[in-house]
């Protein structure tokens, strides 16, 4: 029997992706099911792409962003936060668990926090089970 493992796409912003690198340098272990996509800023991640990721088979999507308190400009984090909050509301409405889209505040030196948070998220997504959107959409009654 094939053991199902969650597939998680993480959009990491410029700063927090160096936090992800940090986790590697310092030898923290975190689950290998997280695939990171580096983007210039978390605020440029179009929510449609998050939806598309879910459609293409991701079980959860993670956005890592700079902590708002550490930013000189507050707007980007606010935008990301609002978008994710809106998207979670939408997913909830259409009957997909909202916890499949998450936001994680990571600074560039917080490799340890990233590793521990990601392990926790993977565990939680494992509890939610596979999303299997293809099965749900194509299945005929």
């Amino acid at each position, binding site marked *: 029997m094939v053991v199902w493992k969650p597939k998680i796409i993480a959009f990491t912003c410029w700063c927090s992706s160096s936090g992800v690198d940090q986790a590697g340098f310092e030898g923290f272990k975190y689950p290998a099911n997280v695939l990171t996509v580096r983007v210039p800023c978390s605020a440029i991640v179009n929510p449609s792409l998050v939806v598309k990721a879910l459609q293409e088979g991701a079980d959860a999507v993670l956005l890592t962003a700079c902590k708002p308190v550490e930013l000189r400009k507050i*707007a980007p984090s606010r935008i990301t936060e609002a978008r994710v909050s809106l998207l979670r509301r939408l997913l909830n409405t259409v009957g997909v668990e909202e916890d499949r889209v998450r936001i994680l505040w990571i600074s560039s030196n917080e490799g340890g926090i990233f590793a521990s948070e990601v392990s926790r998220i993977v565990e939680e997504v494992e509890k939610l089970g596979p999303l299997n959107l293809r099965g749900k959409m194509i299945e005929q009654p």
Partner: protein
Amino acid sequence: MSSPETELRRLARSLLEKKAVDLVIGYEKSEAGVRPCFISEPNEAERLVWNPDCRLSLVRYLRGFKEKRVGIIVKGCDGRAIVELIKENQLDRRSTFIIAVECNGVYKPVKYGSSKLGRQIAEYCEKCEVRISPIRDHLIKSDVKALERPSPKNDGEPLDWLSLFRKCLRCMACVRSCPFCYCTECSIEGFKPALVHKLVDPVELFTFHLTRALHMAGRCVECGACESSCPVEIPLTRLYHELNEWFREKYGYVPGVNLEQAPPPLVFKEGEKP
């Protein structure tokens, strides 16, 4: 007192005679019910009608007449759409003459192969609170009492959206009839890169509808144009209403009610915490 229909005709005729507008967009009678019409001659004003079958929002036609002065007949929701479009710089207020008609709700369309008979007020009209356009040059009051509105059904019963999306044909009628879908190239129809392929894989309908919902969030005025033109009757307005609720809870913003209030995604207040 004259009926709203006669008043409407008289107004349209005088506007066209005075050459205050080049064109009046309204509704006319057709064999299957009511359809949009474009009147440029004063004599033709007699064709205009007003009844609860006038459900398609005429605002989407305004983008075709950018060079002309247009008189347009609007319901409450359509007026809200005009307000939003002005905020988005899509409409010139000065070249539009807005004839607001008090709306008491429209009927659900009885479409081909429908097993239900009899007219029923549309679901989105039951929730509607704005019956007169907030922006107007002339108001025509309704002479009938409001259509009997059944008390809104409890929103609690959740719909199985995934199975509703599965029925979708992707005919784009929702996009094309929407007053807000003014993009020349639709992001969910584009070729390269294609977010949703032209020959849509059923699973892509999920992306299609969610993307559209995200684009409508905080803008949708719940005029029901998408829902009433949908061939498989997906209650899209309910989905967009849910997102509008989010905007109301978070920012206290209701689209299309106040011309002065900027849409929240466009404003940034100093010191605002995420």
